[in-house]
């Protein structure tokens, strides 16, 4: 009897030790910032990877980020910013959902702009509407498309973290071999279609252009840019009805249909995993892609040109601004997070990040710095065209909670046309009907 009780006590003690180990571990990682002594510690989640990537090359995105954070921590002794790499940005929203359910959200996290409407309903998310109007922020210096993406129902919930846009990236050697002249800044979509046809050669397994046809948002935003170039828009200005089935929408989708179905000059990547490899190995004449893709084309002698236009229209592009989103984990940490974000997204730091990581500047004032574009283009060939192309982005996609649903419906319509299963007008009308139902709250 006695022996058994001893065993029971021993088990209890063992459990207590384990429990203590668990709690002390979690308190040191979470509660460090709340104590009065020492600096306030805040956590920042990002998806830039580690400085030394597995293939031994330096990851300049991570290097730029950690370099700036180190500089901040040195110059602001009251605040310690701790950067945590939490895996690919593609999963940042899911990871945050889990953290929010458990109340373990970071102070600052990197999120895609398209997640903003959902995030606006999250508990403890910081409403920055007043903050960014404060002294030293110069909020209107961020590009209009970025500010629109950061704002949900008139409230600012994000600070622009990264901006990109779409442009033509083309393989100069394939153009030379086919005797086609390079894209120019006044190209029309007709020029694009005929060049794509001329670059196509089935015997060499060579296509004029590659297109992401997985019906994801990647498919949809390529279409959005063309829709805007044709003078159309996704929804009515008050976001109550679909308008992408207008003549402009039909014109844009007919252009894609021409290349994919009629000319067969478009390689449709239905899983959206192969395009960069195919372009880099010389199987695709053109891509419509963003600045992030350039580093994936070391084997191609490429050029970059802004988007084509429709007759009389604009060379509209689209940008997908990503955001830093802040959560209130107590007054001290919230204030520290704001202080850091203001410093981190100021002109000087944005310019430094652009020159090290190759990111397009999020602020117009950086572009206006003398010689910035020249130096940027010299260090990252082609990226200067993307930087200038920021001015061609007329608007942002609707920042409403139903946007992902709308995108899903549009993506299916676009792909069904690209696969030759339906006609542009019919597919878009059908999709518009579904979107109207979604917008009406059904």
């Amino acid at each position, binding site marked *: *009897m006695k022996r*058994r*009780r001893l*065993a*029971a006590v021993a*088990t*209890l003690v063992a*459990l207590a030790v*384990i429990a203590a180990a668990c709690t002390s571990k979690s308190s040191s990682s979470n509660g460090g910032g709340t104590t009065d002594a020492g600096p306030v510690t805040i956590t920042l989640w990002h998806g830039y990877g580690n400085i030394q990537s597995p293939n031994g090359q330096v990851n300049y995105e991570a290097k730029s980020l950690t370099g700036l954070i180190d500089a901040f921590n040195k110059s602001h002794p009251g605040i310690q910013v701790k950067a945590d790499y939490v895996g690919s940005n593609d999963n940042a*929203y*899911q990871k945050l*959902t*889990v953290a*929010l*359910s458990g109340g373990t959200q970071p102070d600052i996290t990197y999120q895609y702009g398209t997640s903003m*409407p*959902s*995030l606006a*309903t*999250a*508990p403890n998310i910081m409403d920055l509407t007043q903050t960014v109007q404060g002294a030293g922020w110069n909020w209107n210096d961020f590009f209009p498309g970025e500010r629109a993406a950061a704002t949900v129902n008139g409230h600012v919930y994000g600070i622009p973290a990264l901006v990109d846009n779409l442009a033509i990236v083309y393989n100069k050697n394939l153009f030379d071999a086919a005797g086609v002249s390079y894209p120019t800044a006044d190209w029309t979509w007709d020029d694009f279609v005929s060049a794509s046809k001329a670059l196509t050669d089935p015997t060499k*397994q060579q296509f004029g252009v590659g297109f992401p*046809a*997985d*019906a*994801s948002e990647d498919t949809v935003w390529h279409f959005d840019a063309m829709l805007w170039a044709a003078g159309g828009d996704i929804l009515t200005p008050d976001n109550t009805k679909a308008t992408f089935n207008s003549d402009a929408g039909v014109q844009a989708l007919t252009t894609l249909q021409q290349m994919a179905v009629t000319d067969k000059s478009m*390689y*449709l990547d*239905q*899983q959206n*995993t*192969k395009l960069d490899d*195919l372009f880099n190995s010389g*199987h695709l004449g053109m891509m419509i892609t963003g600045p992030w893709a350039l580093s994936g084309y070391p084997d191609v002698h490429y050029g970059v040109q802004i988007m084509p236009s429709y007759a009389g229209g604009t060379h509209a592009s689209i940008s997908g601004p990503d955001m830093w989103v802040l959560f209130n984990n107590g007054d001290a940490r919230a204030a520290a997070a704001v202080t850091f974000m203001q410093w981190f997204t100021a002109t000087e730091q944005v310019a430094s990040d652009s020159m090290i990581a190759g990111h397009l500047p999020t602020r117009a004032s950086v572009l206006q710095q003398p010689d910035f574009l020249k130096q940027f283009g010299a260090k990252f060939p082609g990226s200067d065209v993307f930087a200038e192309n920021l001015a061609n982005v007329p608007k942002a996609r609707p920042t409403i*909670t*139903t*946007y*992902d*649903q709308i*995108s*899903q419906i549009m993506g*299916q319509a676009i*792909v*069904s046309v690209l*696969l030759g*299963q339906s006609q542009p007008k019919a597919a878009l009308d059908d999709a518009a009907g579904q979107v109207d139902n*979604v917008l009406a709250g059904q």
Partner: protein
Amino acid sequence: MQVSTGLRAAAAAEEAKRPRGDKGRGAGDTLAGWLFVLPSVILIVVFGLLPIVWGFVLSLQKASLISPIRPFAGVENYTKIVHDPLAIQAAEHAVYYTFLFVPISMGLAMFVAIALNRKIALIRTYRLAVFIPVAVSTIATGVMFLWLFDKTFGLANFALGKVGLGPFGWFDSPKGALPSVVIMTVWGWLGFDAIVYLAALQGIPAQLVEAAAVDGAGRWSTFRNVTLPLLGPASLLLMVWSTISAIQLFDEVYFVTKGGPLGATNVPVFYIFKLAFTSSFGFGMAGYAAALAYMLFVAIMLVTLFQFWAGGKMVHYST
């Protein structure tokens, strides 16, 4: 619940009748026993039972995983399943996939296992080669098959073109996508089934096979009347196991086809994932996703019970 309460009452009555003495179990013993199993019990409760209960509560709410506001929805999440064309489509695809995947993988595995069940040179190498795909990660398998089955650049279409077939769309064609997933998953799981069959084959007593030969049975007759019945328990195990994993198909679809093209590979778990963790079908669908997950659980349980019942009627031998 009633059953266990009744059992407990019976046990308590039994306990009360028993004379107290050194042989009886005292309160301290019970306590010690519980304390010893407590760590495992805590793990099972926290990571197993609580999520199951919480998932059920969630299935009765209109909830997103982000917002703390979760209005009660009653059984609405369950009743609307029958009106959801995508849920029905996913269920149809699950049935279609299961009816292809389970017989093909088990039939091929039995064939491969018999081929591997002999003493020839390099037999270990062959066995290893069959098992390697099981050890390869799903993502690596996916990348490989994406290129293998590429409609333009793929080796499969190239080889079939040499004999005048194709080109096929594979993952890119709405009709061919799900059969292509079947091919990929059969390749990936064949080794596992083959190992189970191989173990069962080696457990068949040699004297039974010899006796059949003495009685003048040919190779086919021996297989049909001796080997196949004795593989019954292994077949039942594999059938239950493969059916459950077929109904829960997710990784391959998530990585390779993403439910496409045009919904051709929309399967239950993938649909539940998209409802719960993305806003592709709207915001606040986590409750509905939980309801679907519960229905899936019930469906799998019914199928499994049926298989055990039917298997019990057909499997007479054990080795």
